[in-house]
């Protein structure tokens, strides 16, 4: 009868999870029952044998990092580090674009003397095509950049678990490169604008010289008060 009761007590006894009175009962029974004594000894031996499998070092060092900041905030955070605020960036890009359009417009303005009259034209059709090509190219680049950002963002969101940290590092790197490229772009655009404005100035000087020569040839006497020049032929 007591031996049946022991079946449930062995596990507790072995790992010392028995209440004091149960423990007394169990030990008392084992000391008087040969069969249970052997059973208990076998259990202890098996448990001791298991104990020879020691813990080993996992050789891993998991680190979790804060990742609540949305992708674009983090990207702009990086830009902020090099002194460009998101607003500045967007404003800078829009201004540059407007300036480019404006200056190309001016560059394409031509004054032509044909059939005894002066014509002012804004760019030739060939040049317009060129401009179209340029703007689609810029649009393409912008679209690709946008796609890159979206893709990176999606990758970051989709990447779970172990590659997440790696991806964050890659994204940070990308953000840095992006900022660097942006700055290089802006510098290049600025330089181009300078060059363009210098060229257009040269053009204007030349046009004025031509006009002056023309006036002299046609013996035109400028009016005293207005000082404006007619561009009508003789």
């Amino acid at each position, binding site marked *: 009868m007591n031996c049946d009761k022991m079946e449930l007590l062995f596990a507790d006894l072995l790992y010392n999870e028995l209440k004091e009175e149960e423990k007394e009962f169990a030990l008392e029974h084992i000391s008087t029952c040969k069969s249970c004594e052997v059973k208990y000894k076998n259990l202890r031996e098996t*448990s001791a044998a*298991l104990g020879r499998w020691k813990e080993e070092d996992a050789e891993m060092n*998991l680190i979790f990092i804060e990742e609540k900041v949305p992708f674009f905030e983090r990207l702009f955070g990086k830009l902020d580090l090099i002194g460009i605020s998101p607003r500045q960036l967007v404003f800078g890009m829009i201004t540059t674009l407007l300036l480019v359009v404006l200056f190309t417009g001016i560059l394409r303005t031509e004054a032509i003397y044909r059939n005894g009259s002066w014509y002012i034209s804004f760019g030739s059709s060939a040049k317009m095509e060129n401009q179209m090509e340029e703007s689609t190219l810029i649009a393409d680049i912008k679209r690709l950049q946008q796609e890159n950002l979206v893709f990176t963002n999606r990758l970051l969101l989709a990447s779970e678990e172990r590659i997440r940290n790696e991806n964050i590092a890659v994204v940070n790197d990308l953000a840095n490169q992006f900022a660097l490229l942006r700055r290089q772009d802006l510098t290049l655009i600025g330089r181009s604008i300078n060059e363009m404005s210098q060229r257009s100035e040269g053009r204007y000087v030349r046009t004025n010289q031509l006009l002056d020569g023309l006036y002299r040839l046609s013996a035109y006497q400028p009016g005293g008060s207005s000082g404006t020049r007619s561009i009508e032929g003789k």
Partner: protein
Amino acid sequence: MEDNQLILKFIDGDVQAFNVLVNRWQNRIYNFVFKVLGKREDAKDVTQKTFIKVYKNLRKLKDKQKFSAWIHQIAMNLCRDEIRKNKRSPTISIHEKIRTSTGEEMELKDFLSDGSTDIADELFQGEVVEIIRKGLKMIPEEQRIVIIMKEYQGLKFREISDILQEPLNTIKSRMYYGLNALRKALAELEIDKEVFQYEL
């Protein structure tokens, strides 16, 4: 600092507190998973997954005092997924090849019954691990898991019962029958005396 304090700090937004918790538990969970799965690479993988799950769900843990049982439960479930995925055979044969400390491959049975030298002296830690690992694999999975949780992880029977969602007495009897089955398995491997008499 206690685990539950670290958990509260983490819930407050302190990721560093979570890293302390990870650092404190990763070896323990890794060793648990390693013993259940028997492969180090798988164990690392599952350990990592365990902590990612913990990271995502720690806020939902109602009783912070039950963290130990809870993290074991997560690891346990991931182990089961892994076992199901790999469809590993739950038992092994004594004809299975093992690698001895000298690097040569031989059948487990031959290695164990080589009577020319005193086997107890030859049992280096790596081989002891190999034998116990194989012994554990020879008994039913449900018993093996209870044994690992109790013997190596030091969980209370009450906690194991919570984790496995089984009655307390079921757990205790699995422990009892599991140990007996393991003893038989080790005897079948003909090494009971050598392993058992060591450091007893």
